[in-house]
């Protein structure tokens, strides 16, 4: 299939998701509030700590709050585009719905991870973006930094998605998908603090083996100092490695898949 055809399929996914999500208005509103509460608790937690200390590692209040809001932007993109699909994969594996997915003349990875979109998270995205711009302005970031931020957000989102796709593929080997989803969420939790808060061994593991710390720490460190370009290089390498790892794991998973419905 061509890129244009994928684009057409994705627009159909989007239309169906908007129609589905807006038909349950209470859910729609609750989801927005859920995101807002999460953002508020995350920002205020860091803010309250800074009422008592001047720095955490080398970063002051506005630097850490910019990092947190950068991660919230990446989170909201992730929430909007792929997060719902992780929860559905477990169910689909148990009830055999993947039979049809593997038969379709389109990438099964694309259908499995991009089928459901959460439009409410697009609204939350603008809140997170507003926070990031607010803290970025407080830091007086130069124009060059602002110009590369969109690219860095895209790269961070791609790495986050690839790592989580790989983790989710483990559901083919476990009977229950919920545990894997909770494991995935724990890695998200770890990535929400900058790399320097971790002691050397876990830091190395979480930067070079399961590189969740690169998602936020590499781009934001690069924004603050171009001398940390090596972290950005690791991020790009991690994207390439995890892309091929996902292809390999998915192939093995498809071989292992036993249809529950047949």
């Amino acid at each position, binding site marked *: 299939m061509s890129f244009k055809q994928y684009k057409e399929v994705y627009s159909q996914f989007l239309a169906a998701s908007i129609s589905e999500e807006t038909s349950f208005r*209470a*859910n729609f509103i609750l989801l927005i509030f859920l995101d807002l509460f999460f953002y508020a608790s995350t920002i205020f937690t860091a803010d309250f700590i800074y*009422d008592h200390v001047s720095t955490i*590692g080398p970063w002051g209040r506005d630097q850490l709050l910019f990092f947190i809001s950068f991660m919230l932007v990446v989170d909201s993109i992730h929430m909007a585009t792929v997060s719902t699909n992780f929860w559905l994969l477990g169910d689909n594996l148990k009830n055999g719905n993947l039979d049809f997915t593997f038969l379709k003349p389109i990438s099964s990875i694309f259908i499995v991870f991009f089928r459901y979109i959460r439009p409410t998270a697009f609204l939350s995205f603008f809140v997170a973006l507003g926070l990031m711009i607010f803290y970025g302005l407080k830091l007086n970031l130069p124009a060059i930094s602002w110009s590369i931020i969109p690219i860095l957000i895209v790269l961070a989102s791609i790495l986050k998605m690839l790592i989580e796709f790989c983790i989710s593929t483990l559901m083919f080997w*476990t009977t229950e998908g919920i545990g894997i989803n909770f*494991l995935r969420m*724990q890695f998200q*939790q770890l990535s929400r*603090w900058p790399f320097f*808060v971790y002691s050397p061994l876990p830091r190395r593991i979480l930067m070079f083996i399961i590189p969740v710390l690169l998602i936020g720490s590499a781009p934001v460190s690069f924004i603050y100092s171009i001398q940390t370009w090596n972290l950005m290089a690791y991020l790009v390498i991690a994207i390439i490695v995890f892309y091929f790892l996902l292809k390999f794991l998915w192939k093995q998973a498809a071989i292992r898949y036993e249809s529950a419905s047949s």
Partner: protein
Amino acid sequence: MTTTLGKWIETIKIGWSTHTAYRLNFFLQIIGPALVFFFVKYNLWSSIYGGDPNTVIGGYDFNSMINYHVWTLIVGLLAQGHMGVNMAMDIRYGRISAYLIYPINFWEYHSASFIAFELLQLMISLLTIGIIYSLGLVALPSFFQFMGAIGFCFVVSCFWFSIQYISGMLAFWLEETWMIRIMFGIISAFLSGAILPLELYPEWLVQSLEYSPFPYMTYYPVKIFMGENVNILKGLLIVVAWTSLTGFIASRLWKKGLKMYTAAGM
């Protein structure tokens, strides 16, 4: 009486088997998040204190801060681990019709499952305390304070269960109820002192929370575990009052919801 007790014991056994059927899943879903949460906080506070044992933040030196977060981990396991996802699923998929022919009703079944869960969490918590104590990360309070804290956590877990029950009941009206559970989890983690000790919060916020259930969900039981003097009776009264209120609301919701319930597949 014996028959009723027998029914409860058998249902608790079923609940135990259900919780332990998928052990990896149980670990990743219930214990894993608590451990990761502690791991992040340990690293964060180690970084903030920078290895200086004399630094005091909000009245806490490094050891007492870690002590606080170790007990937060235990309180989280004991009091706030249960998830009411099955209740909502039972309602949403029309499975409550089956309770009409069970010798135990919906409320009793889920309460027995909750008791089984709490017994399991108690075992895991005691094991965790044993490991952490042997690593020298935490000092144990007196026996009576320890038992008092465990008892306090059980009362808090009843409040937590009643909240889970209410969110489950909302499945009569809402398509999805998970966001209510998560939302309450986020708010309670933030306001209960599970993320930061309440001494680090602005004074006005701590004062405004005094009669809310939040400080008594984590901060109070942690302080009891730490052997500090807190007004246990006041804390208990407030949690019991909130549990009674939420229990009453849950019961009203059940009655109202049942009237509009249509069993799927019947």
